[in-house]
């Protein structure tokens, strides 16, 4: 059985992932030229590499078309329903750190916690004739955090695929749920993270699709062991 590993196709994530595998004794080489989207691992004839975009990696692991992938935990938890049943986080790789957070305008001096936000959301309709609007690309994580964990039902999600931090100032939404690594973009847009507003502390992970044929497969075990040994 050939084991396929999905890796980020470009940027820092690609370099960092390749570096980890190299340290683990699994040097990745491109098939054909440098721009190729296929690769192999020196000394591992039964392993192939598929270079994919980060969000596709979570989808492909979810439906089992790749056996392993390197991607952010945020994309796994956002992209897959029942993520823990379908995939296993085999190793946390120590790069690509970023938090998915709930952030509100600095000027909302009265809002420090999700409970405060719950108060504001409950009254919003009566005061403004519409529900509290949250700009985000994280539909699933937002719903879990607001609805399931904090019992806040009455809000609306405004889909935002980029420049989410600018949405409150521009009046497109009231608050945001977004990913932040240093917090500097939030600060520049006069937003603050709620004290219990960290939904997920994400980093790049080696993720395995839970497939029955992985049971007892030596290559699968070897890949996990090799990567775990260097992180």
């Amino acid at each position, binding site marked *: 059985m050939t084991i396929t590993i999905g890796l980020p196709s470009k940027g820092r994530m690609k370099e960092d992932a390749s570096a980890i595998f190299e340290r683990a004794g699994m040097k990745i080489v491109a098939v054909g030229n440098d721009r190729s989207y296929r690769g192999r691992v020196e000394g591992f004839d039964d392993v192939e590499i598929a270079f994919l975009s980060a969000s596709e990696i979570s989808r492909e692991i979810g439906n089992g078309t790749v056996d392993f992938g390197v991607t952010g935990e945020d994309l796994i938890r956002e992209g897959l329903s029942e993520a823990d049943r379908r995939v296993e986080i085999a190793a946390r790789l120590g790069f690509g750190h970023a938090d998915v957070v709930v952030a509100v305008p600095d000027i909302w001096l009265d809002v420090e916690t999700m409970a405060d936000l719950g108060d504001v959301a409950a009254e919003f309709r009566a*005061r403004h004739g519409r529900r509290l609007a949250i700009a985000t690309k994280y539909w699933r994580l937002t719903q879990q955090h607001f609805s399931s964990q904090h019992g806040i039902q009455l809000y609306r999600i405004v889909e935002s695929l980029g420049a989410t931090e600018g949405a409150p*100032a521009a009046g497109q939404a009231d608050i945001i749920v977004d990913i932040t690594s240093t917090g500097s973009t939030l600060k520049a847009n006069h937003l603050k993270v709620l004290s219990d507003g960290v939904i997920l502390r994400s980093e790049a992970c080696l993720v395995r699709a839970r497939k029955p044929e992985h049971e007892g497969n030596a290559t699968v075990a070897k890949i996990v062991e090799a990567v775990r040994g260097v992180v």
Partner: protein
Amino acid sequence: MPLIDMPDFAPAILEEFAGRNTTRVDTPVIQPAEPFLDMAGEDLRRRIFLTENERGESLCLRPEFTIPVCLRHIETVTGTPKRYAYLGEVFRQRREGANEFYQAGLEDLGDTDAATADARIVADALACLHRVLPGRAFAVTIGDQAVFEAVVAALGLPSGWQRRLVRAFGQTDVLEAIIARLAKPEPVAGLSPEVEGLLEAGDDAALARHLHDEMERTGYLTNASRAPEEIVRRLKEKRLLAGASLDAAKLDALKEFLSINVSLRYAPGVLADFARSAGLPLDAAIAGFDARVAALSAAGASLADITWRAAFGRPLDYYTGLVFEVTVRGEHDVLVGGGRYDRMLTLLGAKEHIPAVGFSMWLDRIQKAKEGAAIRKVEAGFRTESPRKSGELR
């Protein structure tokens, strides 16, 4: 086998509806999604079937009837009182059971005599069930948002805390977390000396001006979201909340109330005893509760089959009073869910306040109950699993 065809007992239900002074309505299967998401919240999104039209507007397959029936009532500017009946397919993503199934129900709009309308709707639901499941015994569970709100108000908490408790009604975990937090104060921190100073001085106008200037300086639109005055008002309220806590006796009273689970025959007495022993002024709420019990009795409902569970509620802001569920006695499947939703019509855009109460019958579960009865005759001990879940619209 999922119920794709209309169940054969549907005509009997429609006949029952027709004899109960109702107007039959139908609504399109494809509905704008906005009103549903607006009323029930974003959590509904993953439980309905959504699509978009060419203009990017969200559409969904009808997940229930109450909202479309109410919207239709508002659009057609029909007067009240008005009793609507419906029967048709609804579409929801469910872990168990089919994604398309039939519901039937009544919506009773505009009757200002709440007790009588409540009793009538419960009696209507029971009559329909007796008609389609003859010879079976049913168990009704009722809850009352108004009584809970009255208890919370009588405890003497600041209004902010009252609203938090009321909002959590029906969500056991959330309510318990809030009650636990009520035992300890929640200080307001992180304010600048300037803001602290203005708060100390009680100069709301100056504080609002300060916030307004900050918004201008940081490039925030001042009219798009929360206004400076609103932030000032809640900041002051929050400082009040911070100091508020419930003494042990009142906390115990609240917990005791939420644990009440009693046959409606004894419920008025239990509620009166609770108010007396806890020393809470609940006269108005008790009067409303007792009037409903009397009306149920007058409508011919058997009080012995009805249980009042004080913690039973639905965490949606349009429910205001009665909520109820009906099962076959000893079983878990909720066959009928209903309640009073006095706030819904104005939220949907009605100009005047329209009191409303209604119920929905789950025809797929009723079908199962019918089949269950047939199976039970040959196979003793057969039990159906429970599809009862929280957060359903009804």
